[in-house]
């Protein structure tokens, strides 16, 4: 009988029972960690390692979740040496050679977050406790990301966040075991503001409609602060309920409010509906204060753009990544994804794929699956070739700093996937902020938890 805080299912796959030897190295260097194959949650035994892909499979973000899952399957295929290798060939770190992670073949389990923090935690716990997952990744909303990240911290596994854009994920709710590759509200604001100043001038009056929950609040704050910094004035901010479907009563008063720009801090179904409504009310073609009225959507996603259809034409927003990026890494990924599934990947798929690779590489470099080793390997890690230019995984908050894309709805799309065009690639330096920036204050990473 062995006592443990969390299960170690890997043990039985080979029938071997590992000794209870617990090495506790104090200085990081790959060699030291590699000696310790036990003493942490779900230490993989045998020749396989299990990753947990926790994505929304039911509920409104199910399509996004499906795309994330495709990316994960592709990543696993590439890690195990299948397919054309995708970004493995362009990644600046060369430890990934198609032999799995740390020489172990990659297996995976999937779960359904339902985009509910409870369900997502249940699903993550089942993958950790039942299936012996060593790392959890995925998700399509910040509520879920924050909830699962806290769980992984407690359980002692690594969490590689999927799509989560709220500042809180690496701000007030940051955790040592959690890492985010995706960009955030602050970066959206910082990237958008100069482009907007260029396109629409610095003498603008903005009206914000904001989804009435955490992500909405941080996005509104970020966009407000960065646009005010370039000289814009904020006329009004109105909160809209999450469950709202018809935004007419929020949109209608905008034109008469003295504003000449409408910022829609909405995501998912909210964004599709509010943008559709705004266009219906003629805001895109209207005149105000002697200027063309404009609409801005801080966080764009291709899947949502698809839902809004022709309404996105000419509307600015920001995005983490887009398949039309010309760099080698993006092209390689788009090629292998497109060949396998027949259509280009979404930004959610990209971030999930990249996160899996980053994790695998960190394990290889550390020589151990021990979460603390992985944390040390990822902290301050600089890499390139994964689609966003040279990138830094900052040690202070586990946020990736990389180029951010400002995009615009395309006027003449050639297909249902070709809805956005890149307007500008904002360099990483422009979206970098201090770890203790007020928008991110109040959190602490704590120390890494290896569990067990």
């Amino acid at each position, binding site marked *: 009988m062995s006592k443990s805080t*969390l*299960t*170690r299912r890997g043990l039985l796959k080979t029938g071997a029972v590992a000794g209870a030897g617990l090495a506790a190295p104090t200085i990081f260097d790959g060699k030291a960690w590699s000696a310790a194959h036990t003493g942490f949650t779900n230490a993989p035994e045998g020749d396989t390692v299990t990753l947990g892909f926790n994505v929304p499979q*039911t509920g409104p973000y199910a399509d996004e979740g499906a795309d994330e899952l495709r990316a994960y399957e592709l990543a696993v295929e590439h890690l195990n040496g299948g397919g054309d290798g995708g970004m493995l060939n362009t990644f600046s770190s060369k430890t990934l050679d198609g032999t799995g992670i740390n020489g172990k073949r990659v297996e995976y389990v999937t779960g359904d977050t339902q985009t509910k923090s409870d369900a997502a*935690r*249940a699903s993550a716990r*089942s993958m950790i406790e039942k299936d012996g997952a060593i790392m959890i990744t995925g998700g399509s909303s910040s509520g879920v990301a924050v*909830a699962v990240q806290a769980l992984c911290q*407690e359980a002692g596994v690594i969490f590689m966040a999927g799509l989560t854009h709220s500042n809180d994920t690496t701000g007030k709710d940051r955790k040592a075991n959690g890492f985010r590759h995706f960009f955030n509200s602050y970066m959206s604001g910082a990237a958008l503001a100069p482009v907007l100043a260029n396109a629409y001038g610095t003498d603008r009056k903005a009206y914000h409609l904001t989804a009435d929950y955490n992500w909405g609040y941080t996005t509104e704050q970020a966009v407000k602060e960065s646009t005010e910094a370039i000289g814009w004035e904020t006329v009004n901010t109105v909160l809209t309920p999450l469950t709202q479907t018809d935004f007419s009563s929020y949109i209608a008063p905008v034109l008469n409010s003295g504003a000449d720009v409408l910022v829609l801090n909405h995501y998912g179904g909210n964004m599709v509906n509010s943008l559709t409504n705004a266009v219906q009310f003629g805001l895109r073609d209207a005149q105000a204060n002697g200027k063309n009225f404009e609409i801005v959507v801080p966080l764009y996603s291709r899947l949502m753009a698809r839902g809004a259809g022709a309404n996105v034409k000419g509307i600015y927003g920001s995005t983490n990544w887009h398949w039309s990026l010309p760099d080698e890494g993006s092209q390689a990924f788009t090629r292998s994804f497109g060949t396998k599934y027949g259509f280009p990947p979404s930004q959610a798929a990209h971030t999930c794929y990249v996160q899996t690779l980053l994790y695998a590489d960190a394990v290889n470099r550390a020589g151990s699956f021990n979460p603390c080793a992985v944390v040390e390997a990822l902290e301050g890690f600089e890499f390139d070739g994964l689609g966003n230019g040279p990138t830094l995984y900052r040690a202070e908050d586990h946020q990736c700093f990389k180029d951010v894309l400002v995009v615009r709805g395309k006027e003449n799309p050639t297909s249902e996937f070709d809805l956005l065009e890149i307007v500008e690639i904002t360099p990483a330096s422009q979206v970098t902020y201090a770890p203790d920036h007020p928008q991110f204050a109040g959190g602490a990473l*704590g120390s890494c938890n290896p569990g067990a």
Partner: protein
Amino acid sequence: MLGLNKKDFSLLLIVALLTMLAPFILNPFPEGSELAQFNAGYPDLMQRFVIFGIFAIGFNILFGLTGYLSFGHAAFLGVGSYAGVWMMKLLTMNVIPAILVSVIVAGLFSILIGYISLRRSGIYFSILTLAFAQMSFALAYSVLTPLTGGETGLQLSLNDPRIIGTSVTESGSIPVTHLFGLEMRDSFELEMGAWLFTFNAGYYVCAVVLLVAFYIAIRIFRSPFGMMLRAVKSNQQRMKYTGLNPKPYTLAAFVISGMYAGLAGGLMVSMDPLAGAERMFWTASGEVVLMTILGGAGTLIGPILGAGMIKYMENILSKINSTILHEWFAFMPDGIEDLLVTLVYPFIGKGWHLTLGIIFMLVVIFLPGGLVEGGQRIARLFRRKKEEPKGPDPEHHPKPAPHVAE
């Protein structure tokens, strides 16, 4: 024994055995085998089985006995959860105060909502409870964010001003929930051949609470109070003209079931200290209705079975993806394999909602008494075969068909 007749006592004993041996019963398949997919004996799911069992038992005291269909019961679970987390943030990581406060706060909240909602009956009562729960959800998700954590849920942080105990452990983590030092996440693992069984401290705490909750429910069912509640459902007119006032009886039932919900919420955060607003969404209330009906409303054991079944589907069925399906049917010829996968796929994995909907409809149509009625029918079938005519059991009262007060 324990003030129960023989039949009820054996029922309690069966439930006790089932819960205590759950780690064995729920893990019938050896590790690493194809069928291990269907094992449910891991701490999180076992905890959920009993916690939702408690929730459903409580709901059944209201719906099963009085027939009042509350469509907003998840609000009490949510309020209880928030109260529990706040207790941990402010007072101690010991689960006892958290659970107690959860029950009390949920009880107070249900007095308020019950007092207002019970002024109406039938569908009006359902709509009132639904409206209150939806208001609670909407506010908790948005304007009450400072109190509830909003979208990300209320969780512990490294700078909680905890009075008893520390804010941060020596290793720099948030302390974990415990019962006088016994950590809820502690587990013993037992290896027997190819099998692995996990005995989790948190689970056993929940299981003991479930047994107490179940015992109380049996006592309530067999008590004059329980009989009065069934009278409420059966004929309020006659009840009034028999000198009984149905209002306080239904309110008491409402509050008791609200406290059960609060207890479930408190246990939930004791096992996993995070309280999310989605817990109060109307579909969550719908879920406990499904559990109770599926198992058998008005029966003692039904709600526990229903809760187990739905949580099993949610957690096990939803994890089966197409890769696993292909593995299962790999022994078939290719064409048939693909056909089988295509046929089964819509119902598992991300299609588990569909399966749930279908099963639920079938139960409501053909087995209004839920799984318990199904079991009774089968048992009767066997009994008839043995040709042992048996008179009606004097102590056996469960109603086959749930009726709502109208």
